[in-house]
């Protein structure tokens, strides 16, 4: 199986690699390796190729077959029948959900929840990283980092459990509220509270860990820039605004593009664990709807069509964000 795959890639690998990448080095060093035929390569490296057999079979079965399995969005699927469906039905299942009011409800819930999460959880790690950067005591800084990374290592089940306990009628949030004279609220039964609670739990879980890459980017900023700015009389705020922030801008853009790409796939597992039928009007998103109709009600083709639609939006968003970022600030993923 692997041999035929290797054979297909042979011409392009031979043609593309050396000629395009190192035109200058070619003159000194002829591209000896590029002219090796597959027979010679296999004879020389057959042991190395045996390392590839299991991973490639794994990728084919568990990544590429499900990828092709998406085709059942356009085909009628019969349980027990072919994994790729039985007959073409065109856009039947797409029309089915596009004309379904419930789908549009979860669609807008997804957009709102995704937008709120992005708006809140994207800037906060930057702020926290800047704050940590101003700390003088290395020991204190390390302690704050260690503590703030901790929630990242918790299972989503634990996070959801903590959220449900804290927001319960006898939980801490209600204790604080009653101390200020408010009436206790059964938060997880009130649709209007689902979004704030979800976003807060995201903040709690992700902000500390999100600082790592920014802290790394901050160390790459040249200290001479700060020295020069000080000589020119720039205040601390000006230094932050004109040196620090531009210095971490490429990292910001990369993470922003990635966040926008996962915008539609708002934390499926966490929403599934936190939601209950009472809060579906705000707390039900495409992924959880897909899970209910697709898996629980076994409408496989219908569910797959919704999944493809969601994935397509995600892909378009990431391409759009990437293009915009490249045009406007010159940073892009590829």
């Amino acid at each position: 199986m692997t041999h035929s795959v290797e054979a297909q890639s042979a011409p392009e690998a031979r043609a593309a690699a050396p000629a395009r990448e190192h035109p200058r080095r070619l003159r000194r060093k002829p591209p000896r390796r590029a002219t090796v035929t597959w027979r010679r390569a296999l004879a020389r490296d057959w042991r190395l190729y045996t390392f590839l057999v299991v991973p490639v079979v794994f990728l084919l079965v568990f990544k590429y077959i499900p990828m092709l399995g998406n085709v059942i969005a356009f085909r009628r699927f019969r349980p027990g029948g072919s994994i790729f469906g039985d007959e073409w039905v065109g856009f039947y299942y797409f029309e089915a959900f596009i004309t379904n009011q419930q789908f549009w409800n979860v669609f807008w819930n997804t957009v709102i929840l995704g937008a709120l999460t992005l708006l809140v959880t994207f800037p906060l790690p930057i702020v926290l990283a800047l704050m940590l950067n101003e700390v003088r005591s290395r020991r204190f800084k390390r302690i704050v980092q260690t503590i703030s990374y901790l929630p990242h290592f918790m299972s989503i089940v634990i996070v959801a459990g903590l959220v449900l306990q804290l927001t319960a009628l006898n939980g801490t949030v209600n204790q604080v509220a009653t101390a200020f004279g408010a009436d206790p609220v059964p938060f997880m039964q009130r649709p209007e509270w689902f979004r704030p609670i979800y976003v807060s739990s995201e903040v709690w879980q992700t902000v500390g860990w999100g600082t790592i890459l920014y802290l790394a980017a901050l160390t790459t900023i040249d200290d001479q820039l700060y020295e020069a700015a000080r000589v020119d009389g720039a205040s601390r705020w000006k230094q932050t605004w004109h040196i620090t922030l531009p210095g971490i801008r490429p990292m910001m853009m990369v993470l922003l593009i990635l966040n926008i790409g996962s915008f539609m796939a708002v934390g499926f597992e966490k929403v599934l664990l936190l939601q209950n039928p009472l809060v579906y009007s705000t707390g039900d998103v495409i992924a959880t709807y897909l899970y209910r109709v697709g898996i629980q009600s076994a409408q496989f083709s219908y569910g797959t069509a919704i999944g493809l639609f969601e994935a397509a939006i995600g892909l378009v968003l990431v391409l759009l964000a990437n293009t915009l970022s490249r045009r406007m600030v010159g940073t892009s993923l590829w």
Partner: protein
Amino acid sequence: MVTEDLSRKPDLAHVRRETGVIRESLGYRVFRVVNVTALLLVCAVTLYPFVNLVAKAFSSEGYIAAGEVNLIPRGFNLDTFQVVFADDLFWTNYANTVLYTVVGTAIAMAITSTYAYALSKPHLKGRTFFVGIAVFTMFFSGGLIPNYILIASYLGWRNSILAIVVPGALSVFNLLVMKSFFENFPTELEEAAAIDGLTTYGIFFRIVLPLSKAVLATMTLFYAVGHWNSWFSAFLYMDDKSLFPVTVYLRNLIAAATGTQEITDGGEAAQVASNIQAVTMLLTVLPIICLYPFIQRYFVSGVMLGSVKG
């Protein structure tokens, strides 16, 4: 190793303080106090849910129901632990989690390390293709349902450990981190070993792996924590209670205690459940919390390696 670089940044503030060359403005001193206070607050908010969890685990039901348990246990007792320990299903599921974590991590490491090693060799013909088929899956993948059909119906792995340990065996992120590590492995060592008559297998198992302990430890931790925390694949593919990992046990406990039917009758059951929930949650996170101080730096260095190369 990257964490070390962070602390090696020249500490200008320190120099300034020692030499007293530049005085600080009042505004900056105020800012520093505010900054440290805010960071302490961040720590407090991060830790509070855990402290609350511990307090609830050791409290008696009455105080929890009355909403009087915050930072310290009220009505201290260990009865809840006994109740949880007495449940055989809890131990079965805890043992399952250990089993899935060990087997899953072993499979994942076997696939990832061999794949990464082969991809790290520049003379491997078709290398671009083999890297490409892995990276492509990061951007496009089969959805939930095609995966479900493949694993549950086609492969028939319902209620099988295979459904949990196999499908997630290759993280492309980890693969790229490992590949870049192997690419920087000194070729002289491998060439010397080859001259001494070792085959590719010998070089990989007897030279490369023993000298790559740092990256192997990091990747093992990435996979192991992922498996320990995962619940959804078991939730999706298993309906036999005795095969659940402890995360699904916990999920079912929480769902039973906070389900909408509970709110109407309120009473004793819910209180006991919130007690038991706290103990079960505590026991589930305990291994991670205990290991956390030691493993955290591996994670940080792993993330930064990946961000550079991936």
